[in-house]
Protein backbone atom coordinates (compact mmCIF):
# COMPACT_ATOMS: atom_id res chain seq x y z
CA UNK A 1 0.00 0.00 0.00
CA UNK A 2 1.72 3.17 -1.26
CA UNK A 3 5.09 1.50 -0.78
CA UNK A 4 4.72 1.85 2.95
CA UNK A 5 6.83 -0.73 4.72
CA UNK A 6 5.09 -1.84 7.89
CA UNK A 7 7.42 -2.32 10.79
CA UNK A 8 5.42 -3.91 13.58
CA UNK A 9 8.65 -4.82 15.33
CA UNK A 10 8.86 -1.23 16.52
CA UNK A 11 5.78 -1.58 18.70
CA UNK A 12 6.12 -5.22 19.73
CA UNK A 13 9.57 -5.11 21.24
CA UNK A 14 12.39 -2.85 22.31
CA UNK A 15 12.40 0.68 23.65
CA UNK A 16 9.19 1.87 21.99
CA UNK A 17 7.35 -1.20 23.13
CA UNK A 18 8.37 -0.30 26.65
CA UNK A 19 7.10 3.24 26.18
CA UNK A 20 3.74 1.92 25.10
CA UNK A 21 3.74 -0.55 27.94
CA UNK A 22 4.39 2.18 30.49
CA UNK A 23 1.60 4.21 28.83
CA UNK A 24 -0.74 1.27 29.21
CA UNK A 25 0.27 0.95 32.83
CA UNK A 26 -0.57 4.60 33.46
CA UNK A 27 -3.87 4.32 31.59
CA UNK A 28 -4.87 1.31 33.66
CA UNK A 29 -3.90 3.06 36.89
CA UNK A 30 -5.69 6.24 35.94
CA UNK A 31 -8.82 4.41 34.85
CA UNK A 32 -8.93 1.98 37.74
CA UNK A 33 -8.54 4.66 40.40
CA UNK A 34 -11.05 6.93 38.69
CA UNK A 35 -13.60 4.13 38.16
CA UNK A 36 -13.61 3.22 41.83
CA UNK A 37 -13.80 6.85 42.96
CA UNK A 38 -16.41 7.79 40.33
CA UNK A 39 -18.60 4.89 41.39
CA UNK A 40 -18.44 5.82 45.08
CA UNK A 41 -18.97 9.50 44.39
CA UNK A 42 -21.79 8.69 41.95
CA UNK A 43 -23.46 6.62 44.65
CA UNK A 44 -23.26 9.49 47.11
CA UNK A 45 -24.55 12.05 44.61
CA UNK A 46 -27.42 9.71 43.67
CA UNK A 47 -28.39 9.41 47.34
CA UNK A 48 -28.20 13.19 47.73
CA UNK A 49 -30.33 13.64 44.62
CA UNK A 50 -33.04 11.51 46.29
CA UNK A 51 -32.67 13.09 49.71
CA UNK A 52 -35.69 14.53 51.45
CA UNK A 53 -33.62 17.54 52.52
CA UNK A 54 -34.29 20.17 49.88
CA UNK A 55 -30.92 21.99 49.83
CA UNK A 56 -29.09 18.67 49.56
CA UNK A 57 -31.27 17.66 46.63
CA UNK A 58 -30.73 21.00 44.93
CA UNK A 59 -26.99 20.80 45.37
CA UNK A 60 -26.97 17.35 43.77
CA UNK A 61 -29.17 18.59 40.97
CA UNK A 62 -26.81 21.49 40.25
CA UNK A 63 -23.81 19.19 40.39
CA UNK A 64 -25.35 16.77 37.91
CA UNK A 65 -26.40 19.40 35.43
CA UNK A 66 -23.13 21.29 35.65
CA UNK A 67 -20.72 18.41 35.19
CA UNK A 68 -22.75 16.53 32.61
CA UNK A 69 -23.18 19.56 30.41
CA UNK A 70 -19.66 20.93 30.19
CA UNK A 71 -16.86 19.34 28.14
CA UNK A 72 -14.57 16.99 29.97
CA UNK A 73 -11.55 18.62 28.34
CA UNK A 74 -12.48 21.98 29.81
CA UNK A 75 -13.01 20.40 33.21
CA UNK A 76 -9.62 18.75 32.97
CA UNK A 77 -7.95 22.07 32.10
CA UNK A 78 -9.83 23.68 34.94
CA UNK A 79 -8.54 21.24 37.55
CA UNK A 80 -5.03 21.33 36.15
CA UNK A 81 -4.53 25.00 35.38
CA UNK A 82 -7.33 26.64 37.33
CA UNK A 83 -7.13 24.98 40.70
CA UNK A 84 -3.79 26.67 41.42
CA UNK A 85 -5.64 29.92 41.81
CA UNK A 86 -8.18 28.41 44.18
CA UNK A 87 -6.01 26.39 46.50
CA UNK A 88 -3.92 27.78 49.33
CA UNK A 89 -0.18 28.16 48.72
CA UNK A 90 0.73 25.36 51.11
CA UNK A 91 -1.47 22.87 49.30
CA UNK A 92 0.00 23.88 45.98
CA UNK A 93 3.50 23.34 47.31
CA UNK A 94 2.62 19.82 48.38
CA UNK A 95 0.90 19.10 45.08
CA UNK A 96 3.90 20.35 43.14
CA UNK A 97 5.96 17.61 44.78
CA UNK A 98 3.53 14.96 43.64
CA UNK A 99 2.44 13.90 40.21
CA UNK A 100 -0.07 16.71 39.92
CA UNK A 101 -1.00 15.95 36.29
CA UNK A 102 -2.13 12.53 37.35
CA UNK A 103 -4.09 13.84 40.32
CA UNK A 104 -5.83 16.49 38.24
CA UNK A 105 -6.76 13.88 35.64
CA UNK A 106 -8.19 11.59 38.33
CA UNK A 107 -10.23 14.44 39.79
CA UNK A 108 -11.58 15.47 36.38
CA UNK A 109 -12.44 11.94 35.26
CA UNK A 110 -13.95 11.07 38.64
CA UNK A 111 -16.20 14.08 38.92
CA UNK A 112 -17.27 14.07 35.29
CA UNK A 113 -18.13 10.36 35.26
CA UNK A 114 -19.72 10.39 38.72
CA UNK A 115 -22.44 12.69 37.39
CA UNK A 116 -23.43 10.14 34.76
CA UNK A 117 -23.15 7.23 37.16
CA UNK A 118 -25.34 9.03 39.69
CA UNK A 119 -28.11 9.39 37.12
CA UNK A 120 -27.85 5.71 36.19
CA UNK A 121 -28.00 4.61 39.80
CA UNK A 122 -30.92 6.90 40.47
CA UNK A 123 -32.98 5.43 37.65
CA UNK A 124 -31.99 1.98 38.90
CA UNK A 125 -33.28 2.81 42.37
CA UNK A 126 -36.50 4.20 40.93
CA UNK A 127 -37.15 0.96 39.09
CA UNK A 128 -37.12 -1.06 42.33
CA UNK A 129 -40.72 -1.40 43.56
CA UNK A 130 -41.38 0.84 46.56
CA UNK A 131 -42.68 -2.22 48.40
CA UNK A 132 -39.07 -3.35 48.85
CA UNK A 133 -38.37 -0.22 50.86
CA UNK A 134 -41.62 -0.71 52.78
CA UNK A 135 -40.79 -4.30 53.63
CA UNK A 136 -37.38 -3.28 54.95
CA UNK A 137 -38.72 -0.31 56.89
CA UNK A 138 -41.38 -2.58 58.42
CA UNK A 139 -38.60 -4.72 59.87
CA UNK A 140 -37.15 -1.70 61.64
CA UNK A 141 -34.47 -0.68 59.14
CA UNK A 142 -33.78 3.04 58.96
CA UNK A 143 -34.13 4.64 55.53
CA UNK A 144 -30.36 4.59 54.99
CA UNK A 145 -29.94 0.97 56.08
CA UNK A 146 -32.90 -0.14 53.98
CA UNK A 147 -31.21 1.52 51.01
CA UNK A 148 -27.92 -0.12 51.84
CA UNK A 149 -29.08 -3.67 52.36
CA UNK A 150 -32.23 -3.98 50.29
CA UNK A 151 -32.73 -1.35 47.60
CA UNK A 152 -29.22 -0.49 46.40
CA UNK A 153 -27.98 -4.06 45.95
CA UNK A 154 -30.93 -4.67 43.63
CA UNK A 155 -30.68 -1.30 41.93
CA UNK A 156 -26.98 -1.65 41.22
CA UNK A 157 -27.45 -5.09 39.74
CA UNK A 158 -29.92 -3.82 37.19
CA UNK A 159 -27.71 -0.78 36.60
CA UNK A 160 -24.78 -2.97 35.54
CA UNK A 161 -25.17 -2.47 31.77
CA UNK A 162 -25.18 1.36 31.92
CA UNK A 163 -22.44 1.22 34.55
CA UNK A 164 -20.20 -0.83 32.27
CA UNK A 165 -20.86 1.77 29.65
CA UNK A 166 -19.72 4.54 31.99
CA UNK A 167 -16.61 2.58 32.96
CA UNK A 168 -15.74 2.14 29.29
CA UNK A 169 -16.35 5.80 28.58
CA UNK A 170 -14.09 6.71 31.45
CA UNK A 171 -11.33 4.45 30.19
CA UNK A 172 -11.57 5.92 26.71
CA UNK A 173 -11.86 9.47 28.07
CA UNK A 174 -8.69 8.94 30.08
CA UNK A 175 -6.81 9.56 26.81
CA UNK A 176 -7.68 13.26 27.22
CA UNK A 177 -5.26 13.30 30.12
CA UNK A 178 -2.44 13.49 27.60
CA UNK A 179 -3.39 17.13 27.07
CA UNK A 180 -2.27 17.97 30.58
CA UNK A 181 0.86 15.88 30.26
CA UNK A 182 -0.08 12.56 31.80
CA UNK A 183 2.09 9.94 30.11
CA UNK A 184 -0.71 7.52 29.43
CA UNK A 185 -1.18 5.29 26.42
CA UNK A 186 -2.20 7.88 23.82
CA UNK A 187 0.56 10.21 25.00
CA UNK A 188 3.14 7.46 24.60
CA UNK A 189 1.79 6.43 21.21
CA UNK A 190 2.21 10.04 20.19
CA UNK A 191 5.77 10.00 21.51
CA UNK A 192 6.58 6.87 19.56
CA UNK A 193 5.15 8.47 16.47
CA UNK A 194 7.22 11.62 16.81
CA UNK A 195 10.43 9.71 17.41
CA UNK A 196 9.95 7.10 14.69
CA UNK A 197 7.41 8.60 12.26
CA UNK A 198 5.70 5.25 12.62
CA UNK A 199 2.30 6.71 13.47
CA UNK A 200 0.35 3.97 11.78
CA UNK A 201 1.92 1.22 13.86
CA UNK A 202 1.91 3.22 17.08
CA UNK A 203 -1.75 4.20 16.96
CA UNK A 204 -2.87 0.81 15.69
CA UNK A 205 -1.18 -0.71 18.70
CA UNK A 206 -2.81 1.86 21.00
CA UNK A 207 -6.22 1.22 19.43
CA UNK A 208 -5.93 -2.52 19.91
CA UNK A 209 -4.86 -2.07 23.50
CA UNK A 210 -7.85 0.19 24.24
CA UNK A 211 -10.10 -2.37 22.63
CA UNK A 212 -8.63 -5.17 24.69
CA UNK A 213 -8.98 -3.06 27.82
CA UNK A 214 -12.65 -2.39 27.10
CA UNK A 215 -13.42 -6.03 26.45
CA UNK A 216 -11.58 -6.93 29.62
CA UNK A 217 -13.66 -4.51 31.75
CA UNK A 218 -16.91 -5.69 30.18
CA UNK A 219 -15.99 -9.31 30.77
CA UNK A 220 -14.97 -8.69 34.34
CA UNK A 221 -18.13 -6.89 35.39
CA UNK A 222 -20.35 -9.33 33.53
CA UNK A 223 -18.67 -12.30 35.07
CA UNK A 224 -19.06 -10.89 38.53
CA UNK A 225 -22.74 -10.29 38.08
CA UNK A 226 -23.86 -13.10 35.89
CA UNK A 227 -24.53 -15.64 38.57
CA UNK A 228 -26.18 -13.22 40.94
CA UNK A 229 -28.48 -11.81 38.28
CA UNK A 230 -29.39 -15.25 37.03
CA UNK A 231 -30.19 -16.40 40.51
CA UNK A 232 -32.34 -13.35 41.14
CA UNK A 233 -34.36 -14.10 38.06
CA UNK A 234 -34.52 -17.76 39.04
CA UNK A 235 -32.78 -19.00 35.90
Amino acid sequence: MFHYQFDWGIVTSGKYFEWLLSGLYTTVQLSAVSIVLAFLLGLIIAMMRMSRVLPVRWFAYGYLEFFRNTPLLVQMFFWYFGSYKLLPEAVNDVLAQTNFEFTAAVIALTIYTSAFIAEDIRSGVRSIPKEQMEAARSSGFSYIRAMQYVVLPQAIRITIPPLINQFLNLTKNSSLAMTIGVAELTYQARQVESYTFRGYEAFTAATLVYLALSLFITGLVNLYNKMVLMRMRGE
Partner: protein
Amino acid sequence: MIRFEGVHKWFGNLHVLNTINLHVRQGEVVVICGPSGSGKSTLIRTINRLEPIDKGKLIVDGMHVSDQKTDINRLRTEIGFVFQQFNLYPHLTVLRNITLAPIKVRKVGKKEAQEQAMALLERVGLSEKRDAYPSQLSGGEQQRVAIARSLAMKPRIMLFDEPTSALDPEMIGEVLAVMKDLAESGMTMCVVTHEMGFAREVADRIVFMDHGVILEEREPAAFFTSPQHARAQQFLKQILSPMH
Protein backbone atom coordinates in the same frame (compact mmCIF):
# COMPACT_ATOMS: atom_id res chain seq x y z
CA MET B 1 -51.85 -3.55 72.77
CA ILE B 2 -53.25 -1.48 69.90
CA ARG B 3 -55.62 1.38 70.61
CA PHE B 4 -57.15 3.76 68.07
CA GLU B 5 -58.88 6.79 69.56
CA GLY B 6 -60.74 8.99 67.14
CA VAL B 7 -58.24 8.46 64.33
CA HIS B 8 -58.66 10.30 61.03
CA LYS B 9 -56.72 10.22 57.82
CA TRP B 10 -57.14 11.94 54.49
CA PHE B 11 -55.61 11.34 51.07
CA GLY B 12 -56.16 14.80 49.65
CA ASN B 13 -59.93 15.22 49.78
CA LEU B 14 -60.57 11.54 50.37
CA HIS B 15 -61.48 10.89 53.99
CA VAL B 16 -59.96 7.44 54.06
CA LEU B 17 -60.16 6.84 57.83
CA ASN B 18 -63.03 8.46 59.67
CA THR B 19 -63.22 8.51 63.49
CA ILE B 20 -61.66 5.11 63.99
CA ASN B 21 -62.01 3.71 67.51
CA LEU B 22 -60.62 0.25 67.96
CA HIS B 23 -58.95 -1.66 70.74
CA VAL B 24 -56.99 -4.85 70.17
CA ARG B 25 -55.88 -6.59 73.34
CA GLN B 26 -52.84 -8.77 73.75
CA GLY B 27 -53.31 -12.21 72.19
CA GLU B 28 -56.38 -11.19 70.27
CA VAL B 29 -56.95 -11.96 66.61
CA VAL B 30 -58.96 -9.31 64.80
CA VAL B 31 -60.09 -9.76 61.22
CA ILE B 32 -60.80 -6.65 59.17
CA CYS B 33 -63.03 -6.93 56.14
CA GLY B 34 -65.02 -4.69 53.87
CA PRO B 35 -65.42 -3.72 50.24
CA SER B 36 -62.51 -2.68 48.06
CA GLY B 37 -61.36 0.86 48.75
CA SER B 38 -62.98 0.99 52.18
CA GLY B 39 -59.66 1.78 53.90
CA LYS B 40 -58.64 -1.62 55.31
CA SER B 41 -55.06 -1.48 54.09
CA THR B 42 -54.70 2.11 55.18
CA LEU B 43 -56.01 1.23 58.64
CA ILE B 44 -53.59 -1.63 59.17
CA ARG B 45 -50.69 0.35 57.70
CA THR B 46 -51.15 3.15 60.22
CA ILE B 47 -50.32 0.71 63.01
CA ASN B 48 -46.62 0.68 62.09
CA ARG B 49 -46.76 4.15 60.55
CA LEU B 50 -46.34 3.03 56.96
CA GLU B 51 -49.17 5.56 56.69
CA PRO B 52 -49.10 8.47 59.14
CA ILE B 53 -52.38 9.51 60.72
CA ASP B 54 -53.68 13.08 60.52
CA LYS B 55 -55.76 13.31 63.66
CA GLY B 56 -56.53 11.32 66.80
CA LYS B 57 -54.48 9.03 68.97
CA LEU B 58 -52.92 5.69 68.10
CA ILE B 59 -51.11 3.82 70.83
CA VAL B 60 -49.26 0.60 70.03
CA ASP B 61 -47.46 -1.41 72.66
CA GLY B 62 -47.57 1.60 74.95
CA MET B 63 -46.09 4.02 72.42
CA HIS B 64 -47.73 6.91 70.62
CA VAL B 65 -47.24 6.05 66.97
CA SER B 66 -47.59 9.57 65.59
CA ASP B 67 -45.45 11.19 68.27
CA GLN B 68 -42.27 12.55 66.73
CA LYS B 69 -40.36 11.44 69.82
CA THR B 70 -41.33 7.81 69.29
CA ASP B 71 -38.46 5.74 67.92
CA ILE B 72 -40.41 4.37 65.00
CA ASN B 73 -37.70 1.93 63.95
CA ARG B 74 -37.71 0.41 67.41
CA LEU B 75 -41.48 0.18 67.42
CA ARG B 76 -41.44 -1.48 64.01
CA THR B 77 -39.17 -4.25 65.26
CA GLU B 78 -42.05 -5.23 67.53
CA ILE B 79 -44.55 -5.36 64.68
CA GLY B 80 -44.39 -7.92 61.89
CA PHE B 81 -46.03 -6.95 58.62
CA VAL B 82 -47.04 -9.44 55.94
CA PHE B 83 -47.92 -8.02 52.52
CA GLN B 84 -50.29 -9.21 49.86
CA GLN B 85 -47.41 -9.40 47.36
CA PHE B 86 -44.97 -11.04 49.86
CA ASN B 87 -42.21 -8.52 49.06
CA LEU B 88 -39.36 -10.90 49.74
CA TYR B 89 -35.93 -9.55 48.85
CA PRO B 90 -35.24 -11.09 45.43
CA HIS B 91 -31.47 -10.74 45.66
CA LEU B 92 -31.17 -12.80 48.83
CA THR B 93 -31.68 -16.48 49.57
CA VAL B 94 -34.56 -17.59 51.74
CA LEU B 95 -32.25 -17.95 54.71
CA ARG B 96 -30.76 -14.48 54.26
CA ASN B 97 -34.19 -12.96 53.75
CA ILE B 98 -35.02 -14.20 57.22
CA THR B 99 -31.74 -13.39 58.96
CA LEU B 100 -31.10 -9.94 57.47
CA ALA B 101 -33.11 -7.85 59.92
CA PRO B 102 -32.26 -9.88 63.04
CA ILE B 103 -28.55 -9.52 62.26
CA LYS B 104 -28.53 -5.90 61.06
CA VAL B 105 -31.29 -4.41 63.20
CA ARG B 106 -31.49 -6.59 66.30
CA LYS B 107 -27.72 -7.27 66.23
CA VAL B 108 -28.20 -10.98 66.78
CA GLY B 109 -25.10 -13.10 66.08
CA LYS B 110 -25.02 -14.67 62.64
CA LYS B 111 -25.00 -18.23 63.87
CA GLU B 112 -27.81 -17.68 66.32
CA ALA B 113 -29.86 -15.90 63.66
CA GLN B 114 -29.38 -18.79 61.26
CA GLU B 115 -30.40 -21.39 63.82
CA GLN B 116 -33.46 -19.39 64.64
CA ALA B 117 -34.27 -18.97 60.94
CA MET B 118 -34.01 -22.71 60.41
CA ALA B 119 -36.38 -23.31 63.30
CA LEU B 120 -38.85 -20.90 61.72
CA LEU B 121 -38.51 -22.51 58.31
CA GLU B 122 -39.21 -25.82 60.00
CA ARG B 123 -42.31 -24.31 61.53
CA VAL B 124 -43.66 -23.09 58.17
CA GLY B 125 -42.61 -26.37 56.53
CA LEU B 126 -39.87 -25.05 54.25
CA SER B 127 -36.56 -26.13 55.76
CA GLU B 128 -35.38 -27.62 52.47
CA LYS B 129 -35.75 -24.24 50.73
CA ARG B 130 -33.19 -22.38 52.81
CA ASP B 131 -30.82 -21.79 49.89
CA ALA B 132 -33.45 -21.08 47.25
CA TYR B 133 -34.12 -17.60 45.90
CA PRO B 134 -37.62 -16.16 46.15
CA SER B 135 -38.16 -16.42 42.40
CA GLN B 136 -37.72 -20.19 42.68
CA LEU B 137 -40.62 -20.55 45.11
CA SER B 138 -44.36 -20.77 44.54
CA GLY B 139 -46.55 -17.96 45.82
CA GLY B 140 -47.64 -19.94 48.84
CA GLU B 141 -44.07 -20.78 49.71
CA GLN B 142 -43.01 -17.15 49.31
CA GLN B 143 -45.74 -16.02 51.64
CA ARG B 144 -44.75 -18.60 54.25
CA VAL B 145 -41.15 -17.38 54.02
CA ALA B 146 -42.42 -13.82 54.40
CA ILE B 147 -44.23 -14.84 57.58
CA ALA B 148 -41.07 -16.53 58.87
CA ARG B 149 -39.11 -13.38 58.01
CA SER B 150 -41.48 -11.29 60.14
CA LEU B 151 -41.44 -13.76 62.99
CA ALA B 152 -37.64 -13.76 63.06
CA MET B 153 -37.77 -10.32 64.66
CA LYS B 154 -39.75 -11.86 67.55
CA PRO B 155 -42.56 -9.33 67.15
CA ARG B 156 -45.29 -8.83 69.70
CA ILE B 157 -47.84 -8.00 67.02
CA MET B 158 -48.37 -9.40 63.52
CA LEU B 159 -50.22 -7.51 60.81
CA PHE B 160 -51.44 -9.20 57.63
CA ASP B 161 -52.76 -7.29 54.62
CA GLU B 162 -54.68 -9.74 52.42
CA PRO B 163 -51.97 -12.39 52.76
CA THR B 164 -53.73 -14.91 50.52
CA SER B 165 -55.31 -12.68 47.87
CA ALA B 166 -52.43 -13.04 45.44
CA LEU B 167 -52.31 -16.82 45.75
CA ASP B 168 -53.69 -19.59 43.60
CA PRO B 169 -56.58 -21.28 45.42
CA GLU B 170 -54.65 -24.48 46.11
CA MET B 171 -52.00 -22.52 48.03
CA ILE B 172 -54.27 -20.53 50.27
CA GLY B 173 -54.72 -23.38 52.73
CA GLU B 174 -51.02 -23.78 53.54
CA VAL B 175 -50.67 -20.08 54.38
CA LEU B 176 -53.84 -19.97 56.47
CA ALA B 177 -52.63 -23.04 58.36
CA VAL B 178 -49.45 -21.21 59.34
CA MET B 179 -51.48 -18.19 60.44
CA LYS B 180 -53.85 -20.33 62.45
CA ASP B 181 -50.93 -21.99 64.17
CA LEU B 182 -49.58 -18.55 64.98
CA ALA B 183 -52.89 -17.39 66.39
CA GLU B 184 -53.05 -20.45 68.61
CA SER B 185 -49.60 -19.66 69.95
CA GLY B 186 -51.06 -16.47 71.41
CA MET B 187 -49.82 -13.88 68.91
CA THR B 188 -51.67 -10.58 68.73
CA MET B 189 -52.86 -10.35 65.13
CA CYS B 190 -54.70 -7.96 62.83
CA VAL B 191 -55.65 -9.61 59.58
CA VAL B 192 -57.22 -7.98 56.56
CA THR B 193 -58.76 -10.88 54.67
CA HIS B 194 -61.80 -12.08 52.82
CA GLU B 195 -61.22 -15.65 53.91
CA MET B 196 -64.38 -15.95 55.94
CA GLY B 197 -63.70 -19.56 56.91
CA PHE B 198 -60.49 -18.41 58.59
CA ALA B 199 -62.28 -15.47 60.20
CA ARG B 200 -65.02 -17.68 61.62
CA GLU B 201 -62.58 -20.20 62.98
CA VAL B 202 -59.71 -18.08 64.25
CA ALA B 203 -60.85 -14.51 64.85
CA ASP B 204 -61.90 -13.18 68.22
CA ARG B 205 -63.58 -10.24 66.56
CA ILE B 206 -64.49 -9.10 63.12
CA VAL B 207 -64.29 -5.49 62.06
CA PHE B 208 -66.34 -4.44 59.06
CA MET B 209 -65.35 -1.22 57.30
CA ASP B 210 -66.91 0.84 54.59
CA HIS B 211 -65.88 4.26 53.29
CA GLY B 212 -63.31 4.73 56.03
CA VAL B 213 -65.77 4.03 58.84
CA ILE B 214 -65.96 0.99 61.11
CA LEU B 215 -69.58 -0.06 60.71
CA GLU B 216 -69.53 -3.22 62.79
CA GLU B 217 -67.25 -4.80 65.33
CA ARG B 218 -68.53 -8.12 66.59
CA GLU B 219 -67.69 -11.69 67.42
CA PRO B 220 -67.58 -13.93 64.36
CA ALA B 221 -70.66 -15.96 65.21
CA ALA B 222 -72.78 -12.86 65.68
CA PHE B 223 -71.31 -11.14 62.63
CA PHE B 224 -71.98 -14.05 60.30
CA THR B 225 -75.45 -14.95 61.56
CA SER B 226 -76.91 -11.52 62.13
CA PRO B 227 -74.99 -8.64 60.61
CA GLN B 228 -76.63 -5.40 61.73
CA HIS B 229 -75.71 -3.11 58.92
CA ALA B 230 -77.24 -3.30 55.48
CA ARG B 231 -73.80 -2.81 53.89
CA ALA B 232 -72.42 -5.72 55.92
CA GLN B 233 -75.33 -7.94 54.94
CA GLN B 234 -74.79 -7.12 51.31
CA PHE B 235 -71.02 -7.66 51.60
CA LEU B 236 -71.47 -11.05 53.26
CA LYS B 237 -73.98 -12.16 50.68
CA GLN B 238 -71.53 -11.32 47.92
CA ILE B 239 -68.50 -12.85 49.52
CA LEU B 240 -70.19 -16.05 50.68
CA SER B 241 -72.08 -16.69 47.46
CA PRO B 242 -70.73 -19.74 45.62
CA MET B 243 -70.22 -17.62 42.50
CA HIS B 244 -67.57 -15.56 44.19
